[in-house]
């Protein structure tokens, strides 16, 4: 049911806006420790930029083909999150206690916790972005028409 949009204005504006949305999403994701934002908002915005590409450029364009590849990575974000917790276990502490995140170049507990927060935020963002794209691809199949990639 996804068709390419035929309006030149929409296509041109999307072509300009999608990189900007992605850049802002990465800013929100990595700036979440210092200001409003973080993994949830950044991940949704990353996913939304690709969803805009899918809806505007249709099933045969690069965004949809990229999305069809991306949705195979569903669960990688959750694995990053759990993996950070597992690294803390290996470091000798409790699950998700980032103070035990042993990295050779970090010497203070606070910096280790900061790194743990950053890594888990990336995990959350990846999980949410992939899930949003996956749900949109699923919804586009309601009528049973495969958007052929």
């Amino acid at each position, binding site marked *: *049911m996804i068709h390419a949009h035929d309006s030149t204005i929409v296509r041109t504006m999307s072509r300009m806006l999608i990189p900007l949305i992605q850049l802002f999403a990465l800013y*929100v994701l990595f700036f*979440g*420790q*210092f*200001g*409003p*934002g*973080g*993994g*949830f*908002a950044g991940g*949704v*915005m990353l*996913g*939304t930029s690709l*969803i805009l590409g899918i*809806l505007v450029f249709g099933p045969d364009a690069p965004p949809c083909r990229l999305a069809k590849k991306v*949705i195979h990575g*569903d*669960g990688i*974000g*959750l694995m990053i*999150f*759990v993996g950070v*917790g597992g690294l803390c276990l290996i470091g000798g502490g409790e*699950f*998700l206690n*980032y103070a035990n995140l042993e990295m050779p170049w970090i010497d*203070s*507990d*606070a*910096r280790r*916790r*900061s790194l*743990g*927060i950053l890594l*888990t*935020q990336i*995990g*959350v963002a990846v*999980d*949410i972005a*992939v*899930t*949003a794209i*996956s*749900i*949109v*691809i*699923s*919804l*586009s*199949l*309601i*009528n*049973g028409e*495969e958007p052929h990639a």
Partner: protein
Amino acid sequence: MIYSFEISLLILLLMTAAGAIMVKDLISSVFILGFYSFLLTIVWAWLGAVDVAFVEAVVGAGLATVFFLMTLFGTHPKDTRIRRSAAPLVAFLGLPVLGLLLLYAAEDLPKFSDPQSPANVHVSTEYLKNSLRETDTPNVVTAVLMDYRAFDTLIETAVIFTAGIACALLLRRNQE
């Protein structure tokens, strides 16, 4: 206190919420719901919860609208008009009473931004005092969400993952 601002915002919220329910055309309803989320974003930002406002704007007004619209276009777009039966008498009598009860209960709520309210004397003072020293993260909300309450966030992430998997299982059943 800017009471006029608050009250007009509250009235707009109620109007959009009622409109989203009462409008017959489902696509209009979805857009009104997006506007409702936008108003709720203003409320969160005005209360000082900027992170919540951010997520509400991105998820409520952005992503949920796209999901609703795709669902409506994927089902029968002609079949957007539905018929509702009139509300029963119990609702007309019971709901105002319930509202009055809630208003009566709201009298006992602690005042907004009261430093002695139970929510402000328990653990939040500890977070505000120690989070920068302990986690090297200036944003307290992120520190609480991702470090002090990391397990909650992990389960939330698992819930979102489950939602994606469930959608794929239900809707992509006939593919391949």
